[in-house]
C-alpha cells in the first residue's frame, strides 16, 4: 500500500492507523532513487519471510516502524528544534538537534518549521530510503504521521488532508465518553479519513 497514516496520541500510544492507496511494485518504483543516495535494489538484508531479501519488499510491515522512528524528530520539531530544516540530509536518520535555536530555522525549506506562521503542519520531517514521512501536530500534541512510499502530493493538498483529519479528531474528542488515549474505532471516522485520503493524498 502506497501510503500509511497513523495518529499517535500525546502519550505516544497509537490511536488510529490505516493503510491507504494501492499496493505498489517496489522494484519498478525505485528507478529514481539515486538522488537520495541509497539505491534500494542494492540493499539486501536477509529477512525471513521476504523472498528476495529486499528490505522494502514488505512495505506493509515496515510502515509503522518508519512512522514511529520519525517520532523523535517530530517531537524535536514541534517544540522549535531545527531538525527538519534540511531535506538534503541523510537517508533515514534525520539531523537531530536537541538544542535548536530560533535562528536555525531560517534556512528550512518546508513550511517554516515550528517558528513559522503555521506551526502545526511540520512538512516532510524524515526520509527512509525514498519513502518520505510527513507530520502534523495537533494542539494537544497528538501527531498525525504519514509515510509516503510514492511521491507525496504538494503541501497544499497535504495541509487540506491534515486539517480535515484534525477536525475529525476534535469531533471525536468532543464525545464525552471518549477517554483520552483510547483507540478510535468508529467506522464513520474510518470512512471519512479514507474519503479525505482519496481526495487529497492519492491523486
Amino acid at each position, binding site marked *: 500500500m502506497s501510503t500509511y497514516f497513523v495518529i499517535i496520541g*500525546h502519550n505516544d500510544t497509537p490511536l488510529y492507523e490505516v493503510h491507504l492507496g494501492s499496493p505498489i511494485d517496489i522494484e519498478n518504483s525505485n528507478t529514481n532513487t539515486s538522488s537520495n543516495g541509497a539505491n534500494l535494489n542494492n540493499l539486501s538484508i536477509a529477512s525471513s519471510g521476504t523472498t528476495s531479501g529486499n528490505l522494502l519488499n514488505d512495505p506493509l510491515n515496515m510502515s509503522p516502524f518508519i512512522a514511529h522512528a520519525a517520532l523523535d524528530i517530530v517531537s524535536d520539531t*514541534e*517544540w*522549535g*528544534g531545527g531538525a527538519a530544516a534540511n531535506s538534503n540530509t541523510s537517508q533515514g536518520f534525520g539531523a537531530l538537534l536537541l*538544542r*535548536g*535555536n*530560533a535562528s536555525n530555522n531560517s534556512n528550512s525549506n518546508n513550511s517554516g518549521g*515550528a517558528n513559522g*506562521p*503555521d*506551526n*502545526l*503542519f511540520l512538512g516532510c520531517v524524515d526520509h527512509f530510503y525514498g519513502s518520505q514521512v510527513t507530520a502534523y*501536530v*495537533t*494542539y*494537544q*500534541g497528538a501527531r498525525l504521521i504519514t509515510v509516503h512510499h510514492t511521491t507525496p502530493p504538494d503541501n497544499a493538498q497535504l495541509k*487540506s488532508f491534515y*486539517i*480535515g483529519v*484534525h*477536525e*475529525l*479528531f*476534535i*469531533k*471525536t*474528542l*468532543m*464525545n*464525552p*465518553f*471518549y477517554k*483520552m488515549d*483510547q483507540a*478510535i*474505532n*468508529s*467506522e*464513520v*471516522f474510518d470512512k*471519512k479519513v479514507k*474519503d*479525505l485520503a*482519496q*481526495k487529497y493524498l492519492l491523486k
Partner: protein
Amino acid sequence: MSQPEPQKIIDPSSSSHKKTVKKLPTPLNTNASSCIYTQSLAFTKNKVSLSAMAFLFQEMVSTIYKNSKTMAEFEAKLNKHGFGIGVRLLELLNFRASLPVTTNSRSSIFPSSSSTSAQNPSNSTVSASGSGAAGGNSGSGSTTDRHSNGPESLTSLINTMKRRDLKILDILQFVHGTVWAYLFDHPSDDLVKSSERSNEYMIVDNMPVFTQFIPGGVSCDFYVCGIVQGFLTNAGFPCRVTPHRMPQDGFDRRIVYLVQFDKQVLEREGLRFGSN
C-alpha cells in the same frame, strides 16, 4: 437501529458467566450512523440559564463530597472533572481561533488590549488570529471546492491554522483571554507573574461564576482549576493550579488561581527560547 436487549438478572448460582448488560450507546460502539461527525464545530451561541448550571454544579459537588473521605480527595476528584473539560477546550478553542473572523465563528469579541501586568504582553493570540483572518477572508468567499468532510465541515474555510502556543506567556494569554471569555463571557480580570518564584503565575477572577452561591472556602473552585490545569497540561505545560481567596477592592469572592509550572517547562523555555 436495533433495540437494546432487556437486562437479564444474573443468577449467582448459574454456571454460565455470560453477562448481558445493556451497552451504553457510545458512538464508538454503535453501527448506526453517528451524528458526532456530522455536527459542525462552529460556535453557536447557546446560553444556559445560570440556575440550571448552579443546580447541576451543586449536585456534582454533593455527589463527589459523599464519595470522598478527605477534603484532599474531594478536591482532587473535582479537579479531575474539570480536567476533562480543559483537554477538550484546548483543541476546540484553538481550532475555532483558526477560523476567519465572521460574526458567528468566534465565541466572543474581547478587547484586544488585555489588562495584564505580565512581563511581556505580546498579545500574540490576538495578532495571530488577526493575520489568520486577513488571509482567510479572501478564501472564505469561494466554497466551490467543498471539503469531503461534508457541508458542515469548517476545513474549507481555514487558510492558516492558529499557531500552537510554545511559550508560557502566549498560552497564558490565551487562557486569560479566549478561554475565560468562552466560559464566563469576559476575559479574566488579571494575569500576573509572581515576583518571588519564576514558575508561578496568577489568574484573577473577581466574581467566580460557578461558586457564587456556595458559601465557605475555596474547595469548590478546584473545578475551574481543573479546567485550567487540563488545558495547560495537555498543551505541553504540566502544572498545578490551586485557588486562593483574596478579597480586594470590594470584591469579597475574589479568587486567585495560582498556576505553578513544573521545572521541565521552565527548562524547555530557557533552552528553546531563552538566551536571546
